[in-house]
């Protein structure tokens, strides 16, 4: 107590009486979370302004004698005639390592009840994306732990890969799996004491989701021990449209801190459709001209300025990276709708999830034909390339053949073989939620598939066979897996060991 008083005393003596100059205005109208104010002649675009009751807002519309301000707090407390003050600051959020393991709102204030965040640094939420010179092409893998993705649609650090699909197709699950896998790799890598190991920190931005869903996600992350490497930015469905609109920018600012400080970060926007809708709402209330589907004219600029901030920086600029996995929800699988096409065009590929596949039990329901990764293959490790190089083509051919095979009964041996292999590969790629596979396990499983070790197992037993082989390898053949991981490629000796191991496993495996 006495120390507090002493401190106050010290501050009082250090205080210099001064004069403060502020620019003020008066609220003339409040509606739908947007306040109009007169005055504020010196306000800047995107500047934070202060309302009474400690509510902040952002000046978004500067007109001749009126300013349109979106409120970030409870706009119901404001009334006509209230005074508004400029602050001279652009909206910024706390950043840094202290944010890890925390759940914050769109302006970086903690909402998890774990006390205040002691952040020393703040970043403005709107920042110009890194230019061409400081960038570097993507060449390091970012493993999602999902076999279908890591082998066929690989993602690299600094890439922007869209996850797109209808509702209830497992989009969020892929994102959460990826975060969990990063945590797993981080823990292993940091425990190994490898100097060159680069951990990946994750930022999960929940936009317009139900609070129950968010709680479930946080729970899943905590259970998997991934929360300590993760920042969660929440703008729930019940919050103001302005919060939904700003949360992705806040998350990006937090990710940028890692990138600018030579670290790797992963950011997930779940989902950007809701952000676009929130922006539409704000724009309509601000009476900006509406375009197609009532979106404002600059809705194209919204995701592009957000996603352009994800990059891989070159060693001269710290060698950091920010990988983005934006999520977009489609209606009835329509990827050609307004917002989806817009986001597809500015990302480096997309993972397309199909309702039909999901309902057939193929989970993750990744559509091989429509999913691409434009830069990720440069980041794949050699071992994966060796075993997965042909998988995508084979699967595509399988789908085509399978469609034809429904009509004809007599098939030649080659076609028969292709169909068998295809159906087994599809089974092999099935993976339950929240159980990412390590890259060496993926390589071993795919190698076994490519080298005909699964050919005499019934198709419906492939899933159990794969998990049994995984168990066998991870319990008894740790050193072999370690070798695959450290050498990053399959040479003759490793292949011989793999053959031996898989043959030994095969003699023990009995299909149900």
């Amino acid at each position, binding site marked *: 107590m006495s120390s507090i008083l002493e401190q106050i005393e010290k501050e009082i003596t250090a205080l210099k009486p001064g004069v403060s100059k*502020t620019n003020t205005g008066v609220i003339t109208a409040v509606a739908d979370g947007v306040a109009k104010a007169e005055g504020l002649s010196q306000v800047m675009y995107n500047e934070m302004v202060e309302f009474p009751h400690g509510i902040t807002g952002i000046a978004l519309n500067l007109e001749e004698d009126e300013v349109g301000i979106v409120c970030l707090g409870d706009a119901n407390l404001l009334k006509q005639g209230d005074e508004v003050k400029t602050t001279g600051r652009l909206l910024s959020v706390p950043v840094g390592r202290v944010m890890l393991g925390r759940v914050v709102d769109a302006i970086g204030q903690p909402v998890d009840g774990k006390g205040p965040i002691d952040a020393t640094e703040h970043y403005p939420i709107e920042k110009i994306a890194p230019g061409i010179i400081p960038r570097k092409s993507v060449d390091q893998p970012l493993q999602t732990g999902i076999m279908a993705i890591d082998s066929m649609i690989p993602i690299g650090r600094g890439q922007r890969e869209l996850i797109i699909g209808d509702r209830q197709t497992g989009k969020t699950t892929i994102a959460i799996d990826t975060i969990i896998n990063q945590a797993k790799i981080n823990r292993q890598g940091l425990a190994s004491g490898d100097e060159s190991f680069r951990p990946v920190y994750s930022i999960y931005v929940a936009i317009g989701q139900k609070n129950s869903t968010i709680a479930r996600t946080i729970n899943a992350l905590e259970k998997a021990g991934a929360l300590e490497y993760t920042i969660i930015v929440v703008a729930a469905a019940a919050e103001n449209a302005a919060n939904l609109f700003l949360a992705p920018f806040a998350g990006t600012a937090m990710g940028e801190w890692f990138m600018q400080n030579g670290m790797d970060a992963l950011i997930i926007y779940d989902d950007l459709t809701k952000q676009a809708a929130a922006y539409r709402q704000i724009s309509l209330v601000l009476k900006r001209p509406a375009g197609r589907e009532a979106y404002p004219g600059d809705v194209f600029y919204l995701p592009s300025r957000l996603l352009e901030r994800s990059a891989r920086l070159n060693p001269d600029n710290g060698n950091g990276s920010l990988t983005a996995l934006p999520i977009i929800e489609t209606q009835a699988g329509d990827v050609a709708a307004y917002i989806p096409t817009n986001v597809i065009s500015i990302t480096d590929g997309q993972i397309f999830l199909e309702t039909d596949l999901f309902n057939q039990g193929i989970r993750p329901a990744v559509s091989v034909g429509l999913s691409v990764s434009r830069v990720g293959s440069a980041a794949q490790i050699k071992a994966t390339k060796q075993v997965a190089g042909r998988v995508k083509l084979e699967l595509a051919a399988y789908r085509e053949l399978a469609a034809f095979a429904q009509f004809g009964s007599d098939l030649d041996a080659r076609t028969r073989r292709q169909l068998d292999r295809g159906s087994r590969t599809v089974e092999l790629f099935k993976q339950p939620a929240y159980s990412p596979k390590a890259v060496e396990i993926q390589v071993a499983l795919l190698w076994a598939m490519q080298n005909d070790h699964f050919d005499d197992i019934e198709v419906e037993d492939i899933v159990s066979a794969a998990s049994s082989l995984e168990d066998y390898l991870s319990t008894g053949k740790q050193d072999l897996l370690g070798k695959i991981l450290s050498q990053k490629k399959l040479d003759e000796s490793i292949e011989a060991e793999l053959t031996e191991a898989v043959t030994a496993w095969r003699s023990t495996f009995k299909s149900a």
Partner: protein
Amino acid sequence: MATSQDSKLAKRLALLVVEAGEQGVAELKPALEKILAGRSAKDRKAFLKDFHKAAVREIQKETLTVESAQSLSPEVLSQLVIKFSEGRERPLQVVQKTNPELIAGMKVRLGDTVYDASLANNLQNLANSIR
């Protein structure tokens, strides 16, 4: 219903009247009558509202409001008026208010800019600075 044009006209008229001062007010009535003739009641009301708003804003720009804990001594006031009148063509309207809550010092408003040099504000800043 040329509302945007009407409101522009109202603004210009307000500016003119405020610039002209006393004389402007005398000339205002016939001008207003001319403008308002032949307009619907709704348009008239809107026009007058716009005019009023614009006039208030223009007058505020020319008004120096000095709020202090006790009535200021003439020399302090004149010092402020001279300071704020620098670079202006027309003299400022000065409004003086007393507000004991300021404790000491003063708060000066010109247009929408507020200069607060009161003791109360300084104390408040002090309270805010302690975290």
